[in-house]
Each structure stands twice: as structure tokens, then as C-alpha cells.
């Protein structure tokens, strides 16, 4: 697949929708905020929406960011791009994508929910197969390893944003401003390193395909 192919596609329809999915406490809302601020920096209209009442208590979290020349609805039942900070939530997030959509997933991050801990259900796998069956492009990366390489484990979501950046119309400056608006100042450089590592990982992964 070509990560850049999608850049014009969905945007040409007017509004691009990114859904960030993960587990409460993983920083899903902050990752969505980075996207929203980057879109502002890129001169786009932005709306975002999240349900955060239970987000600190380990439940599933979904945050939606929509941007484009003009944005009306703050929500969308479907997304052009899903960024998943955890594997099971990535599997769940596939249902948001139509064929041709893309999911960026921290495939090595697994947080078992209660039913799995209690051995009532297995922790699911098969993301590649499920994505293929749905006709969805998959960019699966070991975000934790790259975050460690960036020097701060808490930059995993920036790695994911970097991996997704090929699909997004944001310049390096936009990303810097987006991150600066949403992460603590002292972690900005580590987050920028993580973003670059994520982007490079995707490029090399595509090179392999």
C-alpha cells in the first residue's frame, strides 16, 4: 500500500476523520489533542469529541478528531484513520473503518481486560487477518520499543502519531506545534524523537511490503 495515497483521497471529500482508540489511562485523549492542535497549525478547521467519564478507570476510550476546510459534525460512525494504542482496542476499532481505510496499531501493547484475566475469554489476536478481511491497511508497530529508543516510555503515542503521519497533511512544524500544545514542555524533544522514529518505522515497513 502507499501511505501517501490516502492523503488526498479522504481530504478531497472534505473532512478527514481520525479515531484514536485505547484503554483509559493510556493517553488517548492527549494523542487526540496533539492531532487537533496540529490541524489548527495547518490552518484547518477542527472539531473533536470524546467520552471521558470512565476514561481514567481502565475502560475502552475513543476520541475522534475531524479536520478539513470545513467541519460540521463533531462525531462520525466511520473513520478514515484509526490510531490504536492497544491491540484489543485496535481489533475493536477495525469496525470504524471502511475498505481502504488505515489502522495504525501498537500491536505489541496488550492490556488484558477482566474477562481475559479471569480466563473467561482468550486475549484475541489475528489483527493482520482481520484487517485484510476488511480491506483495511494495517501499520502495526512496536511502539513501546521505539519509545524506549526515543528515551521516554511515555512517548509511545507520539510513535503512533509518527507512524500515521504519512497519511496526515501536517508539516514538521505542525507536529511540533501540536505536540508543544499538548505534552509537558520538558518532554517535547523526546516526543519529537518518538514521532520521527514512528515515521521512519512506517516508511521502512512499507519498503518491506
Amino acid at each position, binding site marked *: 500500500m502507499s501511505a501517501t495515497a490516502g492523503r488526498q483521497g479522504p481530504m478531497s471529500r472534505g473532512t478527514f476523520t481520525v479515531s484514536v482508540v485505547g*484503554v*483509559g489511562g493510556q493517553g488517548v485523549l492527549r494523542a487526540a489533542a496533539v492531532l487537533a492542535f496540529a490541524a489548527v497549525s495547518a490552518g484547518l478547521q477542527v472539531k473533536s469529541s470524546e467520552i471521558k*467519564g*470512565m476514561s*481514567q*478507570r*481502565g*475502560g*475502552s476510550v475513543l476520541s475522534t478528531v475531524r479536520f478539513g476546510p470545513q467541519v460540521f459534525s463533531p462525531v462520525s460512525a466511520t473513520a478514515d484513520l484509526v490510531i490504536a494504542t492497544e491491540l*484489543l*482496542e485496535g*481489533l*475493536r476499532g*477495525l*469496525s470504524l473503518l471502511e475498505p481502504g481505510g488505515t489502522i495504525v496499531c501498537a500491536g505489541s501493547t496488550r492490556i*488484558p*481486560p*477482566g*474477562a*481475559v*484475566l*479471569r*480466563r*473467561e*475469554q482468550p*486475549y*484475541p489476536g*489475528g489483527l493482520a487477518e*482481520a484487517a485484510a*478481511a*476488511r480491506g483495511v491497511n494495517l501499520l502495526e508497530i512496536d511502539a513501546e520499543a521505539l519509545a524506549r529508543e526515543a528515551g521516554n516510555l511515555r512517548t509511545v503515542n507520539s510513535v503512533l502519531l509518527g507512524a500515521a503521519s504519512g497519511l496526515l497533511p501536517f508539516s514538521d512544524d505542525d507536529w511540533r506545534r501540536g505536540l508543544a500544545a499538548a505534552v509537558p514542555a520538558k518532554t517535547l524533544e523526546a516526543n519529537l524523537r518518538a514521532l520521527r522514529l514512528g515515521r521512519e518505522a512506517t516508511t521502512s515497513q512499507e519498503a518491506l511490503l
Partner: protein
Amino acid sequence: MEPQLMSGNEAIAHGALRAGAGFACGYPGTPSTEIVETAARLDGIHAQWCVNEKVALEVGVGAALAGVRTVVTMKHVGLNVAADPFMAVALAGVNAGLVVVSADDPGMHSSQNEQDNRVLARFAKIPLLEPTDSQEAYDFLAEAFALSEEFDTPVLLRTTTRIAHGRGLVTPREKLAIEPKPYARDIAKYVMVPANAKRRNHRALQRLEELRARAEVSPLNVLEPGTSDFGIIASGVGYQYAREAFPDAWILKLGFANPLPYGKILELYGQVSRVAVVEELEPFIEDQVRAMGLPAIGKQAIPIEGELDQTIVRRALEPYLEAEPPVRGPVTLPQPPRLAEASPAPAADGAPDLPVRPPVLCPGCPHRAVFSTLRKRRLVPMGDIGCYTLGALAPLLAIDTSLCMGASIGMMAGFNKALGRKAAVGVIGDSTFFHSGITALLDARYNETEGIVVVLDNRTTAMTGQQGHPGTGVHPDSTEGPAIDIVALCQGIGVRCVTADVAEYKALDKLIREEAKLPGLVVIVVQSPCILYQPPAKRTVEVVGPNCNMCGLCLAIGCPAIAPGDDVISILDNCIGCGLCADVCNRDALIMHDAVVAA
């Protein structure tokens, strides 16, 4: 039996007793007051004043859950105070029947406003009964309780000043033989966390259409034939005014007016060419009739404020009888509203049945210790709104109810009072206690209710993200003012109060076990800070393999940092070292260490 002269309020109390009610409570307010006063003079029904209408309804819900038919009374503005439990119990439903009496005061004889509480029955999606005289006030109680239990819903019985304080003859009827309905735990029905509340709301909407079908055939809705080409739809005392003003008219008397029986309305329109709606205050029936595409003489003629009487009604409507009958267009019977899908349809491509991920109590959450001891007791735990509502989820299953903010203590009190023993415990957070738990505690003290209240004092409003409250003195800008001491507050109203700490788990367990056996009312304040707010010193857990037989005691506390391994328990990276698993382990298989154990 000989007819007796009774006010509507007296008739409601006698009618409740006749219908098998064993519990009546409320807060005094004109024109509702005499219902509880009368009930207090009757044998076989417990009557009590509550501290306010919100607490009264929560106490009433507790009594109904305990299995006793219950009537809760208030004036119209009282239902504003009770709106929170009112809207929530409309979704949760009841066990034994629950009737809420709202006595409205059109004309504001003794009120700060006039409001038509029929709209609140519609708002809450519950049945509305409106008696037109003392006999109906007496008789409707039996119907109200029967509807409440059959349709699993509270019922709003609405009166107005002229019904409540008007007198008329009542022929008493044979007392109904009503058995108590033992309480059965049903977390999915009584714990209004979002997932459950969504299902209950869906059910309430389905129930509404079932109730409408019942209203179509209810003996409370009567079409009285007339001899003129004029029909009137009326409810409450408006019926009496209309009947006297227009003896020749057809009258549809709606004793069961929500949900509106569309078929009955059409039946009247089939008989006459002119129809008026006679109702005090809001155009409650009229608006719905007009939405059917039917012309109606309503609030353009009949005053929308104050009381009516037969003269007002006659003078208002007479001019319309001389005018040409209105032209009728096509009638549209309103379709039931479309409901959302009960649950998302599975993906078309057969996506696997993914494990759900409900929110959970954090690893190391101090509430977990309280729940792991509560679940061993035979007490019914009445819960409240906050992080600790998550104690209702598997595997803890340590909260039976969560209705609305502050409801736990009132529900505990009503449950225990109805059963006459210490059967329930109220579990409430510190912020929720300040929100509206205090009033319910005052009520339990005033009514000498036996019971246990556990205040989970984690020193913050945790669920919403660590906000301050009166117990911490912290303001939104992080400045600090006076902090109010829960223990002193409880003692100040004469309630025995003891403190506990989850760090001393065995002592906490013993305390709750012993308090369950003692008479009276006690508040146990568990003083253990939220781990997100005040992270404890890090400790680690060592699993002593040979001692672990995977008995499951530690798994039962529902900690997301504990998982069964292949042979022994495994402690995950998200463990913060609270030590509860080691406290509940009785084989010394889990040992706490202050420092990280070398691998």
C-alpha cells in the same frame, strides 16, 4: 360498608392501606400533608416524615425494594426536589409497588409557583393517574399499585388542591390480600451504571407503548355518552367542572392520562363534531391531541393559569358551540417512536466476539478492600454514584443498587425500616456524602432507623478527576479553605461514628462483621486516600510459589494487577503494592516487600 366523608388526602391514605401498602412517607407540603398524617393513624401501615422529598423518595424506593407496597407523598414543588431519584427509579423500576403522589396547587393558594406535574410523568415515561374525587382517590391506589408491579414502574398519582382538600363520600372496599415480595438482587436492573441504564431506558420506552395499550382498555378511562354534538376530554377536577357545565356533552374522562390512549380520543371524535379539552394549567392532553391532527378547543379558550370552575369552563366554551364546527383534516395516529438498536449489530464480516473492557477500580484502589469484606456479609449493599459504583461489576458484585447521587443512605434506611431489621448497608463516597448523603443520614437518625453507613472517604471527588469538596476544603484554583470533618459532623447529629483504614484490612473486616450484629445506626468512615490523588509508597508482592494453590481468594478481589498463571498466581506490572491480595490470602502465598525483590 357505609360511605364515609373523606378528603382526597384521607382517601389516598385509606386507599393505600386497602391496596396493601405497608409504608408511607413524604415531606409535608400543602396540599399533600394529610396523606402521611392519616396513614400514621392507621394500623398496618408505617408512616414517617422524611427530611425532604428527595430523601423521602429514596426511602420509599428502599421500602419497595424490600418488598412492601409504598406510597411517597409531596406537593408539586417537592417533586422538583425529588426529581433525581424520580427520573432514576423510572428506569430501574420497582419490586413491590411504588406510588408517588404529587399534590399540585393551581392558583398558588399556598405555593411559590404553580406547575403541572403531569408533564413530569411524561418526562419520566411512567404512568399517570388522576382521580376526579375522593372515591376515585381511594380506588385508584389499588390500580396504581397493580400497574406499578405489573409494568415494573413507579406510578405518579397527581392530585390538585380541590381533590386533595376537597371532601366527598367514599365507600370503603374489601382490603386486598397482598403478600410481601422478597427482595432479589438484580444488579443489571438496579445499578444505573451507563451500560445498565441504557438497557433500562430502552426497556422504559418499550414499556411506555405497553402502558398505552393498557390505557386504551383501562376502566379508569371512561367515555360517557352524551346527547349533544359536543365532546369534552377532561382529567382531574376539570372533569367535575366540565360535567356540571355541560350535562349533555359527551365526556372522555381520563383517569389514566399518560401515556395517552389515542384510540379513546378517536372514539370520542367519532361521535361529535366539536371537541374541547378541559384541563387546569398546561395543555398537556391538548397538545398531544393536536399532534394527532385533531382540532381542539383548548387553551385559546380555557385559562392556562390558576384554577378553573364550572362557570369559567361554561363561559369559555359556550361561544365555540355556536360557531361552525372546525373542518377536520386527515387524522394521523402517532406512530410509536423508533428506538435505537438495543446493542450494536455484529460486524457483517463476522468480527470475533471481542472481550468487552468495562471500567474497573484501579489497582490499589482502597475501595476494593471495603468491597471484599462487604461481599462476605449478608447485608444488602446499597451503593451510590462514584468510582465505587464499579464495585457492582464482576467479580466483586458488592453493590446491589446505584440510583442517583446520595440515594444509598435513604434506600438503606427505607429497606431496613420496612423489614424492621438491619438488612442493608449504605455505601457512599465522601464527596457524595456531602452532596446529599448528609440529609439522608439526618433522616435515618430522626426516624431512629437501624443500619450501617460506610463512607468511603478517599479525600477527593475521584471519578470526575480529583476535584475538591467540603471535606477537603480544596477549591477549583487549588487554594484551600476550611475542611469539614465527617466524623464530627456525624457525632454532631448524634450518630455513632467510627473510623477505619484499609491498610488494616483484618481490623476493617472485623469491624464490619461486628457492627452488623449491633443495634442502632452507625457510620463507619474508611479513611484511605485515592491512590491517584495521594499515591502510596511503592511496595512489591512476592508470590511464594509452593504456598499458592490457586484457590482464587485473591482473584475474587477483582484487581486488574492479578491474573491466574499456569500453576500459581501471577502479579502484573500495573501492581502498586497496596497489599490487599496478601491480606486476603490465607496460605502466605503472597508476601509484601518494601523494596523491589531481586529476581
